[in-house]
């Protein structure tokens, strides 16, 4: 890669790395898998940087690649190898006597969502992507994003329950 392009790439990575890692972590719930996903995403961007850097919405493109890596990950047999991830049962059968902080509770609730809904929630409410940009990242229609978002929020409301109930009126899918 030419030095100028590589500088552009380096600047892009420097500015986005932490946020991409957080996005990946919110999606998969495991820091090491998040690293794997982000590394694969950024490596793919590097290899295609000449083309990717010319895309108007490079962030949208990066999110698209990242989400694909996340959605693909569990399909592959090596996802069986445990890297310290947390089992889904924490989301579905929490022990009432346990004191789980709000943040962990939110992660547990996220893990309880189907992957598509989780991706929509994270992209919409953490990455602040528009409905259209989220649809582009997930390769689906804006209507589908709204539908999944609505289902995801309803599920979060149900899981968090009680005092943690989400005020649906304050959330726009």
């Amino acid at each position: 890669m030419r030095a100028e392009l590589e500088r552009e790439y380096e600047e892009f990575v420097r500015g986005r790395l932490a946020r991409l890692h957080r996005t990946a972590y919110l999606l998969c719930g495991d820091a090491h898998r998040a690293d794997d996903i982000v590394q694969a995403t950024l490596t793919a961007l590097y290899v295609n940087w000449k083309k990717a850097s010319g895309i108007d919405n490079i962030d949208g493109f990066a999110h698209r690649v990242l989400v694909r890596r996340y959605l693909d990950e569990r399909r592959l047999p090596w996802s069986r190898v445990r890297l310290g991830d947390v089992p889904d049962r924490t989301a579905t059968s929490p022990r009432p006597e346990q004191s789980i902080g709000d943040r962990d509770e939110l992660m547990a609730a996220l893990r309880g969502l189907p992957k598509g809904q989780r991706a929509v929630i994270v992209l919409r409410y953490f990455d602040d992507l528009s409905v259209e940009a989220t649809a582009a990242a997930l390769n689906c229609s804006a209507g589908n994003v709204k539908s999944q978002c609505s289902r995801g929020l309803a599920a979060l409301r149900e899981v968090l329950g009680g005092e943690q109930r989400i005020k649906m009126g304050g959330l726009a899918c």
Partner: protein
Amino acid sequence: MLTEHDLRERLGAVHVPPSRLDTETMLIAGRRAGRRRTAGAVAGAVLAVGALVAVPSVVFGARGTPDVAPAAPRSTTCAVTGLPVPVGMNDVLVSGIDPAGRYITGFNTTEEAGTNQKTGKVDGLPAAQPVLWVDGRPQRLPGSYRSVIPSGVNTAGVVAAVAGNGKTFDTVLRYVAGTPQKLTTPAGRWSFNQGVYVNAAGDIAAADDQRGVLLWKAGSTTAAKLPLPAHAMINGLSDDGRIIGAVVTADGQTLTSYLWTQTGTASKFVTPDGQQMSVNAARGEWVTGNVWPSGTAVRWNTRTGQFTDLKLHTPAHGVNAQGWVLADDTIERPDAPALKLEHVAGDDEPPFVGFLSDRGLAAGNRLTSDKDGHTVSKGVITWNCADRK
């Protein structure tokens, strides 16, 4: 009540463990991938070997500092062979190898798994057809299920697989001489999403982390539910019938690995430095896995107690009877230099190497991305490291 603002704030406030990545390591990884692609364009060879010999392997240190493994004196000449796949199968992934290296299992998928991106619903298992290679020759395994994924095979060629037609793998199959037998489960809806294991005798073990661990003795289709802790997960079945597995606390913070007898007597894996250990594979007296929080791959001799931190920040996928540990594209040997498994020149992604026989035959996949960014198989390959010094 949470508002939209609260939800955004809470997502932003979730505690995220430190990343091992930094800008410099991403540049190095990108350059390596770029070199692979360039090398491929020049070589134009499907299975040319050795294009990356001079490129040091980068692994990521726990604090984001790249540890650069020495480029020499590693032996880098394990013979690479591409395995044929049955006609019409285009996305075949390897899923197991027997200890003698004669049998290899895999499966072909024809669609994306899991949640439907458009509806958000789990709309069924991916269609998957099982494949068995015998001495390098592939054959389709029969199975009247939409999805059949083999995940274990022994030296007699007995294959263990999970299967299902709906949303979960609710069935376990045993293939003997290529013919499937359905293994019965106790009453209730069972779901086997962790893979199944077969030992030398032909016993098969599988777990539903909500319902328990089942064992089918060789020749029997009737399951015995083992008296193991609730939510036990399994990662292996030894030839003497013991179960290698783990239990995670309900808050997800603590993972403890165990070796259980079939009567439930537990031996706990306790690392010398008190880290948590996720046991990923076991063979004979050897065990491998990763320890946390360091994240490094380790080798453990359960007979002598010798514990070795391999200092590799990568998943340890397998271990063989010689104590060779397979960690991504590296084989760490107890008494010999590590082996680096070459990437195929021209591939833009590193291969997946997941399985290792006792004599040193490793099996895996070449990988690439399709136009939508999905990871797909570019071919099935083996590395024969049997006589490497």
